[in-house]
């Protein structure tokens, strides 16, 4: 690697324009019907993840509306217990597995490569496979639901209720295989993100200069990698119990119902942070941009993310405080669950300090960030209460908990995500969202949200348990439930306005500049929407906020081939250029592999032999995926090896 002089001929405007044309040709996605299934561009796949996830969000939201209708008054008979149980299970399962995780990963897929100045995401074919698995999982779940075999054992599927003896029919199997689907997808995405962030950063982006959103996605990807194996084991053993008669959860044969709870919550509590941390990253980006200053306390914010992730793996037992485990042992989890508040507190203090010392601009994205404070802090404080063993014994599995985690998840994740869409919509589509509609939707959502969920705290303390399809009039829970349902209606209106804003602005929104908000990170250094190759020339960075810093003497990267999909690979710690890697072309094989694996998963609900027969198409598809295509490689192996030996000799 050599560093050139300022007037390198490759940096002449005409040369750059030529390179851009050639790159566009190399990196563009195939068109047509087959092309649609072959796409491997992280931006296209990222948008697909986000849009599909919001599709499921709408479905799950409608289910929530149905529940609020049923609970609006006592002794209601609108929805019977069988359907109601399916609805609340579908709502939770969809929101957790088909909305929250895919959408936060989707934002990472789209923006991480842009923010770190890379041409592409690592393992783009694996990413495409992950998307198809995710899409098939959702279609599978909702087809089953409309066939009246939607899961009805709760998103937690406790045994023995979901076991072979009490979970008759195929409903619990549908849930377990849905989990296998989505976890396969999540694990694949996490590999892509981890490797991208470790190895594809622009030169100069050492660990201490990674944008906070990227840090959040990195920490999240690691949490996915460490927690999802647990639910894979759980759902796998549940399927085995149901399908081939193993006894993991059958106490009569030495199994144990609490083993399920341990395995499930070892995944499901970190899952909450998987949903929450990327949203924290979004808040950091928005606050920096709309105060016009670097976020205060970068290191504290990074450490908070990492600390939350680690402590998040040491709190799962707080979901099991009422199972009769000895209090002496469970109290350590109380300590951890209370201490995990500190990193979140540090983040909030740092953001307030940023707002304090910056020049605040009240655009819609910032409003969502402020709404995040108002809502999420309340959820965090009720979380402290739930960490206390005795208090949890009272409010566990009541509407108090429902209120708590909606404050945490909607406040901590949905508000930042909606703000993030307002923030990045111009980058993704080239058009601005309407501020007026955006602000209207925000205020309605904030009011509707609090009207829906605040009364549920009180309901929980008044003794209303979760997951009940009705309640007697004498309990006097009617008024607060009615208020809650009215709030849900308001939220429905708010989200409809939000969606209308997106639909209208997509066609008629003001055209966006490259950096309409004056932000500091690299995704704003390219055009809106970005070209398929992301950057030309590829950038380097000299600090944390590259677009706010003097860039005159910062070099750029030249020498990446434009006629093949070359990507610069850098080193882990300080992102020094290391080697170039040729990235794969678009291909339909990931789609076919997802079809084969999906067929195996679905078939195995009905017969264990599906694993054997289904392995054949899976193998064929994987071979097709891995087999190199002849003729499209410009360099022969001999030339590459000769080149290698030559450079080795030069070094010596």
């Amino acid at each position: 690697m050599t560093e050139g002089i300022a007037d390198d001929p490759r940096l002449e405007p005409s040369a750059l324009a030529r390179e851009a044309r050639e790159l566009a040709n190399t990196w563009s996605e195939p068109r047509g019907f087959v092309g649609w299934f072959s796409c491997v561009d992280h931006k296209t796949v990222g948008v697909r993840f986000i849009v599909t996830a919001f599709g499921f969000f709408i479905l799950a939201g409608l289910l929530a509306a149905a529940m609020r209708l049923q609970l609006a008054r006592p002794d209601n008979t609108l929805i019977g217990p069988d359907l109601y149980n399916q609805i609340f299970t579908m709502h939770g399962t969809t929101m957790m597995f088909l909305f929250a995780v895919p959408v936060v990963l989707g934002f990472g897929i789209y923006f991480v490569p842009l923010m770190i100045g890379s041409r592409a995401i690592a393992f783009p074919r694996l990413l495409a496979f992950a998307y198809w698995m995710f899409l098939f999982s959702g279609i599978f779940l909702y087809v089953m639901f409309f066939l009246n075999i939607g899961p009805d054992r709760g998103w937690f599927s406790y045994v023995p209720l979901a076991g072979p003896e009490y979970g008759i029919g195929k409903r619990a199997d549908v849930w377990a295989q849905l989990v296998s689907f989505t976890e396969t997808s999540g694990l694949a995405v996490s590999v892509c993100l981890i490797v991208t962030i470790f190895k594809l950063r622009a030169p100069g982006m050492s660990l201490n200069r990674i944008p906070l959103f990227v840090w959040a996605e990195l920490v999240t990807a690691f949490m996915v990698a460490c927690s999802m194996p647990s639910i894979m084991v759980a759902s796998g053993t549940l399927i085995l119990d149901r399908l081939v008669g193993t006894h993991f959860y059958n106490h009569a044969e030495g199994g144990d119902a609490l083993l399920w709870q341990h395995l499930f919550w070892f995944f499901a509590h970190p899952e909450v942070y998987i949903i929450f941390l990327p949203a924290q990253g979004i808040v950091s980006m928005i606050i920096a941009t709309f105060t016009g200053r670097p976020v205060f306390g970068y290191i504290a914010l990074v450490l908070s993310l990492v600390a939350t992730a680690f402590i998040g793996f040491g709190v799962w037992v707080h979901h099991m405080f009422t199972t009769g485990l000895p209090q002496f042992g469970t109290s350590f989890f109380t300590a951890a669950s209370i201490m995990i508040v500190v990193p979140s507190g540090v983040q909030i203090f740092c953001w307030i300090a940023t707002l304090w010392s910056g020049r605040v601009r009240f655009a819609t994205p910032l409003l969502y960030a402020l709404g995040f404070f108002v809502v999420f802090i309340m959820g965090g404080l009720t979380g402290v209460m739930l960490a206390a063993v005795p208090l949890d014994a009272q409010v566990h599995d009541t509407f108090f908990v429902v209120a708590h985690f909606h404050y945490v998840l909607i406040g901590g994740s949905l508000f930042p995500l909606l703000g993030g869409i307002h923030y990045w919509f111009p980058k993704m589509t080239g058009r601005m969202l309407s501020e007026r509609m955006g602000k209207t939707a925000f205020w309605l959502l904030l009011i509707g949200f609090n009207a829906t969920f605040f009364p549920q705290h009180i309901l929980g303390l008044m003794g209303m348990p979760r997951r009940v399809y009705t309640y007697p009039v004498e309990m006097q829970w009617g008024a607060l439930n009615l208020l809650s349902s009215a709030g849900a209606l308001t939220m429905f209106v708010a989200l409809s306005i939000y969606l209308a804003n997106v639909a209208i602005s997509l066609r008629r929104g003001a055209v966006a500049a490259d950096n309409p908000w004056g932000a500091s990170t690299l995704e704003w250094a390219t055009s809106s929407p970005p070209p398929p190759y992301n950057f030309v020339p590829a950038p380097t960075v000299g600090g944390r906020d590259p677009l706010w810093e003097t860039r005159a003497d910062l070099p750029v990267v030249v020498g990446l081939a434009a006629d093949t999909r070359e990507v610069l690979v850098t080193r882990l710690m300080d992102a020094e250029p290391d080697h170039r890697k040729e990235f794969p072309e678009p291909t339909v094989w990931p789609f076919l592999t997802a079809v084969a694996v999906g067929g195996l998963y679905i078939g195995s609900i009905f017969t264990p032999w599906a694993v054997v027969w289904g392995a054949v198409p899976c193998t064929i598809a994987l071979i097709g995926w891995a087999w190199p295509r002849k003729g499209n490689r410009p360099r022969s192996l001999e030339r590459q090896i000769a080149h290698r030996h030559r450079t080795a000799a030069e070094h010596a």
Partner: protein
Amino acid sequence: MPSSTSRPVSHERWRLAAVWAGVLAGPLAWLTLLEVNYLFAYVACEVQRTWFMHLASAVAVALIAASGYAAWTASHGDMRDEETVTHPLSDETRRQRSRWMSLAGVAFSIWFIVVILAMEVPIIVLRECQ
């Protein structure tokens, strides 16, 4: 490309190990201690003693403190999160990253010691078999 190996390679390796130890020792020691304490809780009920739980905490704290100290010395006590615009491939980029990681290691060590102290509260307050 400016190169930077004024110090011997082995020293650089030691520095790298020290900063990573500072960052990772806290969380890993704490997670281990959590599991150990959870198991010890059953033992404590059987023998009606808790001293070994305090001992385990003390060992974890000592381990974390040592790693934090290593991270501190790795950058000669110069721990700043000071950001100046540098050339991407310069020594200064690397130095800033190294200082930053030392600071992270020290801060993390202190923080996880606090978490371990929080876990002492139930050991002190609760009776062995509750």
